[in-house]
């Protein structure tokens, strides 16, 4: 018998000579003391420590094994704090675990430690059907959640192919995607908040991601952090109404190129399907060999296309798509007429993984994204790499997102093949980075791509990520060796080569000089319209971004646009509408894009979570003048932390935002605005909440009391008549009537009215803002407003804005929903959403502004 191995010994198959991850080995007595301490904390705890039982917690779907020191099966959240306290005392790593389906090694205890297994914590804690949101425990399996929601006509949009196994906690911590991302977005677009524990053992409420958040988007950065920042014990998520109609088509093509050309043609016709999945020739052949899905076996590619939405739109769009398929020379088109036929068309896609898995001992699943138009090129490169390294690579792709999964069958017991596979793998990653892509679209960095993160992000960005990690977890005990490398890691070639020099830009140079030489606080200003709302300091210097006025890149087939931050909203609006594109958060006014994003400006035409849903990449100058660039021109990107989220709503406290890449969407063909008045605020609000939950909700809505209670509803669709009809029905039921306007005429008027309202406090009075879960608006936004009060209510986000001509007297308590307030002659007051995050926020600010260049919020909102 082989000698027993040390428990903490690593036995990963894949060697990583460059990685210097270490942990002091425990002696037997240390380990025993640790186990005793755990048991002493909570006698109900199920703790496993024997080597054979621990084998069941050594792996995830990545194919490596590392044994933990203990596994704990959590029954409820109250057990988490004490366990973390013991872990910290002993300096022991802690690894959260959902279903262990991570494909990047997220759950493997590479340095040993405690595995916290969430599989038994799987309750749905609350469902609020009016607000369309729910709170769940992390161990809830995605498919089980969907089954509960389906009964209510709802669903949770993230649908990774592993949905039958993977948990909402895992989906959240990996920021997972799925076939329906192209239309519905990824997990982060559907997480509202929740609750978590930091390594200090303290529980904290996750700040809301809605547009009435006061502080930094910490939830946004925890989502996708692979369990390295926090242990999440509750997740609050957005629920979506099931669409009334769905159509499924399967089209075959002779080449991948013609399939992708079809995708581009569909998008060019203003259609965003809910699914655009592609299988290449080898995948089709494998699927047909093992599962006989009925896919045309001689095709070069198939596209699985699904469209959903209101009946009228779906049938119009289907006709258009069928015409496009004809024009593009599809070899064959199958259309599902029954649920069974839908299943049949999906069968090949669903079994693509399984079929590939039958070919060899193991399957290596890669996950890269490129700008969508470059997909054919990337796929060609992948097959060339396959040939070069001797692998039969089968590729499936979420073609709508430019996200491809080359699958490499290999034999894990053959060291030569494993190392050859790793080489092929790195070649694929390099190729995608060269095309401006991301090395992971949805599976995460994990342990698997730690070193390769350097292919995509330079030392500056990587070090900032490492510091963010320290801001949450100073000792680095949460899931060490995952997602981001320790501070200061350099790839060997990075230390050999001089650092890349970026071309000098005199405008940026000037800003950098100003930052480096500043004698006082530096306040960043765009159009200056929000000066009084931003944090400021007496005697500050002002840095104006208006010189940054270039439109950098308009990539229509990719549905992205890159602009500098000094560009004005109305200028960008014009460019977009020439191309029939839109960013739903973009108002019609003269504010700069930088100002809008930095202040997370709320816009009534957006029914989602605001700017955070639309910014794909951001470039900024931090307080020491370093230029940082996070995110890519790709629809999906989970490489390292989602630092882009921190920029949105950073209010000039983290740096000068200089450039953004936005995800844009085709502008639907038709639109209309309904104006409803002549009723009480409460009546209008109640009806707005009903409209909010229609199967096909409007693009946006806002309610104002400026000229008597008035509700504006913004409809957009391929065919807007059906929606107008549905809306009329709802209104009639409440004895209300709509007056109809064209969007082109009405939207600028509403925008102007809101702009004026926002400025009202400059000449006296007090302006307050905040929000509640939308379902609570009827309690919180409906009060005995005095005749002089002006109120704007946003039924989609639950935001409330309130202006009163007389400031709130100092003794009077503010309503609970207020997060910020402004009065003439005073700096803004901010109520921190939860004082428990102050330490983390301060540390994050220090990362980006080590010398305290930028003004910060003054405390004092807590009246």
């Amino acid at each position, binding site marked *: 018998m082989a000698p*027993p191995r040390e428990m903490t010994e690593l036995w990963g198959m894949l060697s990583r000579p460059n990685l210097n991850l270490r942990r002091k080995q425990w002696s037997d007595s240390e380990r025993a003391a640790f186990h005793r301490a755990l048991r002493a904390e909570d006698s109900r705890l199920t703790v496993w420590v*024997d080597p054979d039982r621990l*084998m069941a917690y050594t*792996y995830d779907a990545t194919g490596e094994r590392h044994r933990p020191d203990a596994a704990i099966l959590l029954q409820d959240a109250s057990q988490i704090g004490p366990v973390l306290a013991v872990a910290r005392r002993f300096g022991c790593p802690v690894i959260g675990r959902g279903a*262990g389906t991570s494909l990047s090694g997220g759950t493997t205890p590479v340095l040993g430690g405690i595995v916290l297994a969430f599989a038994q914590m799987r309750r749905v804690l609350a469902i609020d059907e009016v607000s369309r949101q729910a709170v769940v425990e992390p161990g809830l399996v995605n498919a089980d959640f969907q089954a509960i929601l389906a009964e209510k006509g709802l669903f949770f949009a993230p649908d990774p192919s592993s949905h039958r196994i993977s948990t909402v906690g895992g989906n959240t911590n990996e920021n997972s995607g799925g076939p329906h991302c192209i239309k519905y977005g990824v997990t982060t677009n559907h997480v509202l908040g929740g609750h978590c524990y930091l390594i200090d053992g303290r529980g904290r409420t996750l700040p809301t991601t809605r547009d009435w958040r006061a502080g930094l988007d910490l939830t946004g950065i925890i989502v996708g952090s692979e369990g390295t920042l926090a242990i999440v014990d509750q997740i609050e998520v957005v629920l979506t109404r099931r669409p009334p109609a769905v159509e499924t088509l399967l089209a075959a093509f002779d080449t991948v190129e013609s399939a992708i050309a079809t995708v581009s043609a569909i998008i060019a016709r203003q259609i965003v399907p809910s699914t655009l999945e592609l299988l290449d020739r080898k995948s089709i052949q494998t699927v047909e060999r093992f599962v006989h899905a009925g896919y045309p076996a001689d095709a070069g590619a198939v596209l699985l296309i699904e469209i959903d939405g209101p009946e009228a739109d779906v049938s119009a769009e289907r006709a258009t798509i069928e015409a496009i398929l004809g024009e593009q020379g599809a070899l064959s088109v199958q259309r599902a007429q029954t649920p069974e036929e839908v299943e049949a068309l999906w069968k090949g896609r669903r079994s693509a993984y399984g079929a590939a898995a039958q070919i060899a001992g193991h399957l290596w699943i890669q996950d890269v994204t490129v700008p969508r138009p470059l997909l054919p090129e990337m796929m060609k490169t992948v097959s060339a790499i396959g040939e070069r390294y001797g692998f039969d690579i089968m590729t499936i792709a979420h073609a709508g997102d430019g996200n491809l999964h080359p699958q490499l069958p290999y034999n894990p017991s053959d060291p030569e093949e494993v190392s050859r596979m790793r080489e092929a793998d790195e070649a694929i990653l390099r190729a995608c980075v060269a095309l401006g892509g991301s090395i992971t679209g949805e599976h995460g960095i994990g342990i698997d791509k730690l070193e390769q993160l350097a292919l995509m992000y330079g030392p500056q960005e990587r070090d900032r990520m490492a510091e963010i990690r320290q801001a949450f977890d100073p000792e680095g005990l949460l899931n060490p060796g995952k997602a981001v490398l320790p501070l200061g890691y350099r790839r060997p070639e990075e230390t050999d080569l001089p650092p890349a020099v970026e071309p000098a830009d005199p405008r940026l140079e000037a800003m950098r000089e100003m930052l480096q030489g500043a004698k006082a606080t530096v306040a960043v200003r765009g159009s200056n319209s929000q000066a009084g709302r931003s944090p400021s300091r007496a005697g500050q210097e002002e840095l104006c971004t208006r010189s940054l006025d270039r439109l950098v890149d308009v990539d229509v087939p990719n549905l992205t646009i890159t602009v500098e931050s000094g560009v004005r909203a109305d200028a960008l609006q014009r460019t977009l509408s020439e191309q029939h594109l839109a960013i739903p958060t973009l108002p019609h006014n003269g504010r700069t894009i930088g100002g809008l994003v930095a202040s997370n400006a709320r816009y009534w035409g957006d029914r989602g979570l605001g700017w955070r849903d639309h910014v794909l990449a951001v470039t900024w100058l931090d307080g020491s003048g370093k230029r940082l660039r996070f995110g890519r021109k790709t629809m999906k990107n989970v490489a390292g932390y989602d630092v882009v989220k921190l920029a949105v709503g950073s209010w000039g406290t983290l740096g000068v935002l200089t450039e953004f890449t936005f995800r844009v969407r085709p502008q639907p063909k038709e639109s209309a605005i309904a104006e409803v008045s002549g009723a009480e605020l409460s009546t209008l609000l109640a009806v707005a909440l009903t409209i909010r939950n229609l199967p096909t909700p409007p693009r946006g809505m806002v309610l104002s009391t400026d000229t008597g209670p008035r509700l504006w509803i913004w409809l957009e669709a391929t065919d807007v008549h059906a929606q107008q009809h549905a809306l009329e029905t709802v209104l009639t039921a409440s004895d209300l009537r709509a007056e109809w306007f064209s969007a082109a005429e009405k939207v600028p008027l509403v925008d102007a009215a809101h702009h004026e309202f926002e400025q009202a406090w400059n000449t006296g009075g007090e302006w307050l803002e905040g929000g509640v879960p939308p379902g609570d608006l009827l309690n919180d936004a409906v009060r005995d407003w005095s005749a002089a009060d002006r109120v704007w209510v946003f039924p989609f986000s639950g935001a409330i804005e309130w202006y009163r001509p007389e400031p709130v007297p100092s003794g009077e308590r503010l309503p609970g929903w207020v997060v910020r307030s402004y009065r003439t002659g005073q700096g803004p007051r901010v109520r921190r959403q939860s004082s428990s995050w102050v330490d983390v926020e301060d540390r994050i600010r220090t990362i980006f502004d080590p010398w305290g260049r930028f003004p910060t919020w003054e405390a004092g909102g807590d009246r």
Partner: protein
Amino acid sequence: MKDPSRWRWVLQETDHCNKCGFCLPACPTYRLTRQELHSPRGRIAMVEAAVRGELTTTAGLEEALSYCVGCRACELACPSGVRYERILETGRSLLVEGGSTAFRGSLAARTALYLAPRKHTFRSFARWGSLARRVPLADLVSDYAVMLPESTGRSQPSRTMPRPSPTGPRVAFFSGCVMDAMFAEANRMAQQLLTAAGYRVFQLPSETCCGAIHLHSAQPAEAQRLAKANIAAFESEAADWIVNTAGGCGAMLQEYPELFAQDPAWKERAERFSARVRDFSSLLVAEEARPLGYLGDGSRVVLQNSCHLVNVQRVGDHPVQLLRQVTGNTFVPYADQNFCCGAGGLYNINHREWARGILDDKMDKVAALEPTKIIVNNPGCHMQMLWGVERHKERVHAKVEHLATYLWQCHQNYLRADEASASGSDVEAEP
């Protein structure tokens, strides 16, 4: 544990496991516990470590392997085609070799193992057990007693036999030990149905227990001995098919070649035997069968499909096809009808608590469907569902019936209605 290296061949099998987790939702013990230790993936990882000589303790491995129901749903769910059974048996053998007694089972289980191949004794034991249902007994005994059918069916008068076809395919009927001892009626009715469908059915007195429960109780030598006896017994007979009514036995008979991996001569004989083994439902839906009419009495029917019929024989849709052919009853399919009931050979004797946990979960789902009949096709499931109905008698008012019994009755109803319509009078279906 002795030197585990002689089991290294199984690494080929474990290497195929990508740890994707697709098997997790299919596994009854994982669904019950949500512990990776009690998941197929976890068991595979532990056996792999044992074979690689990496384990210094084995209590957890013993627990994990002994609590596996052996339903093999993980194999059907596995996209990579991992043959879990081989890994499980390797793990068990490895532990037994190292002196483990975890798989010997309780006294009751060992009694069953002893009795199974001894048909005559088993029958009298079963009859005694049926009587026990009607006398008040201590809790423990009565707990088992409810699992026995009210009548073992051996004393019922046989009804009119259809006339055998002179030319149809020859079918050797494999009675099975538990089926024969406790549910003989179902066997007889299956024979009649097959005869009516045009098969020539005959029985061999020399058959013995299939050996499944021995194999799964880590007695592979005994299982091999029984298998050899059966292979030899059926070899001389020119049967086109070897048919049975117990999903579990059928699966074992189909997998005899697995027992003789090291013995090419016997392996070949086993292959010839196994290739001919079919479940009776497969023969009834086969093209060569004469279609039979089935008429119901308005029952609401749910199916508790045999795990091994579904996961090993992979013909789980044949019973469903037959149930759909019955007119006048409502067949209520549900998502978990192929999901294990917790019976698992001797599982409900050895691991009572867990078997009950799996069963209660199943009965929750069944109760919501309000069936009046629960159809089974394996004796273990039959006993387990009787127990379930007894445990949940306030909510579930259903009769548990073997598929053969049910179909035979429906066929009789159909014949009677046919005759009546020929003679013009109305006849009520017999309940």
